[in-house]
């Protein structure tokens, strides 16, 4: 298994949600590694979108982000949650770095870093 030798495997691949959901099939049964263009394996993504739903469960937060090509769930755990809860609200354009996986047959991203995106045209980059 030579995934680790591929630099794409260690980077946050910039994708749209629609492309990730339809063109990147999982490479393992656990749904933790995904295929990019049938040439590369990846597990980390960078996604830009608008927050359309925000749910708090104690110290965990779930965001629903829409980037005009698709909608996906993002989970923010306590370590990252304490840095973001005051900054991220509905309607904010955010840039998210995280690890994608399939959980209960649904794609979701565990957020590693989240921040506001300042560019109006970020959605189309």
């Amino acid at each position, binding site marked *: 298994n030579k995934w680790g030798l591929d630099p794409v495997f260690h980077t946050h691949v910039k994708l749209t*949600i*629609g*492309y990730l959901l*339809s*063109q990147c099939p999982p490479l393992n049964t656990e749904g933790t590694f995904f295929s990019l263009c049938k040439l590369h394996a990846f597990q980390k993504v960078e996604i830009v979108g*608008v*927050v*359309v739903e925000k749910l708090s469960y104690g110290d965990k937060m779930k965001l629903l982000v*829409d*980037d*005009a*090509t*698709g*909608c996906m769930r993002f989970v923010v755990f306590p370590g990252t949650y304490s840095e973001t809860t005051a900054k991220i*609200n*509905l*309607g*904010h*354009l955010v840039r998210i770095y995280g690890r994608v996986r399939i959980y209960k047959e649904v794609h979701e991203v565990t957020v590693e870093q989240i921040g506001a995106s300042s560019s*109006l*045209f970020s959605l*189309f980059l």
Partner: protein
Amino acid sequence: EYARVVLLDELPTTALPSGTLVRVTGSLTKIETTCDSVTLTSKGHFVTVTTSLLGPEQIEELYVGGVYQVIGTISERCVIQARVVRDVGGLDYDLYAGAVGVLRQWQNSQSLK
């Protein structure tokens, strides 16, 4: 389900079933506080947006002349129930429309629709 990007001039001609999630952009020209609605206009086309589902902090930020992007469900022709409102002041609408066209071409080529 994600919000489908629709330009204001496409709304009258696009047959969208009630309940479809849409994302529209326009300049706010009228605020009616009595019936919780605002009017977005772009290039002579307008749409009525009801704001009853928005939080007070989002409604307070609305002002006449601002450019906003609304994500919501379309209930009947030209009436949108807003869920999220974004201030996109400074957006070049013609460039944005061009970008939407390119996005749609790419989506068709990838068969994402």
